[in-house]
């Protein structure tokens, strides 16, 4: 329905009030902990006790290292959000214009 209206009027809904977006930082922690946990699991199956201890300490160490970071998030500034959204609106608008010309 909205789409039909948009085609008929040949315009999109009004631009919303964009807000900055909070995003988590990328982190390899999960993969590294999983690696140490796998090492530990392998070692326990084959009774290699020293390697099991290495795996446990490694996993716990990475966990603590990660937990001690103070920055876990970054903000996408509102200018960037707006610029991206406007670029997308421009493309949609072109498409919409084509559609309304053809109907």
């Amino acid at each position, binding site marked *: 329905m909205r789409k039909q209206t948009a085609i008929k009027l040949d315009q999109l809904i009004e631009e919303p009030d964009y*807000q900055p977006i909070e995003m988590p930082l990328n982190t390899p922690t999960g993969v590294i902990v999983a690696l140490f946990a796998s090492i530990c699991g392998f070692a326990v199956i084959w009774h290699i006790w020293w390697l099991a201890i290495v795996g446990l300490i490694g996993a*716990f160490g990475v*966990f*603590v290292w990660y*937990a*001690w970071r*103070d920055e*876990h998030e970054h903000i996408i500034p509102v200018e960037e959000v707006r610029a991206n959204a406007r670029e997308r609106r421009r493309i949609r608008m072109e498409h919409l214009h084509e559609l309304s010309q053809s109907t």
Partner: protein
Amino acid sequence: MTSEAATIGLTHSGSEDTGLGHRGPESKSIVVPYGFWLFVLSDMVLFSALFATYASLAHATDGGPISNQLFDRNLVAVETIALLLSSFVCGLAMIAAKRANMLWTQGWLFVTGLLGFVFLSIELYEFAKMIGEGAGPQRSAFLSSFFTLVGCHGAHVTCGLLWIGTMMAQIWAKGFRDDIVRRLLCLSIFWHALDIIWVAIFTIVYLIGTLA
């Protein structure tokens, strides 16, 4: 009433406004525990698989020792009391943390960990005794599933103890910051969840297992 509930409650009332209105995302003090609940529930799914395994293998003793001969109700009662009490003390630690009281938070967290350690020691003693009597996990399907189920719970408690220690150090070093308090909240959810699972183990493994 409401303000007191807010002080001791586990969630909600402390939630900060995101400034995006009621159609915007929930605040982090809601979203973070919610995500952690998803993890806890997936953990419960893991345990339900182990419970099902145990229930179907409980009588597959291969002529070896049966549950009635192995389990000591009194010992397990002490174990259970230690764990339930540690959950209660964990709640006290959360109250102290909500009031940003460093001394009591650290104290109660320490007692929580101590009671968890008592629980774990009794469990390891029980395991060692059983293995010493030749009732190790290799003896029968019943014992394999027993050690998997109860051992998995014990491994969770061990992780919980490490987490409690880390949490105490973090509160000490970083204070009652919002993100630290959220972690503490997740820890308390984890610890209570372990308690719930233990109640099921206590009932299904130990109580039903020692019926005459």
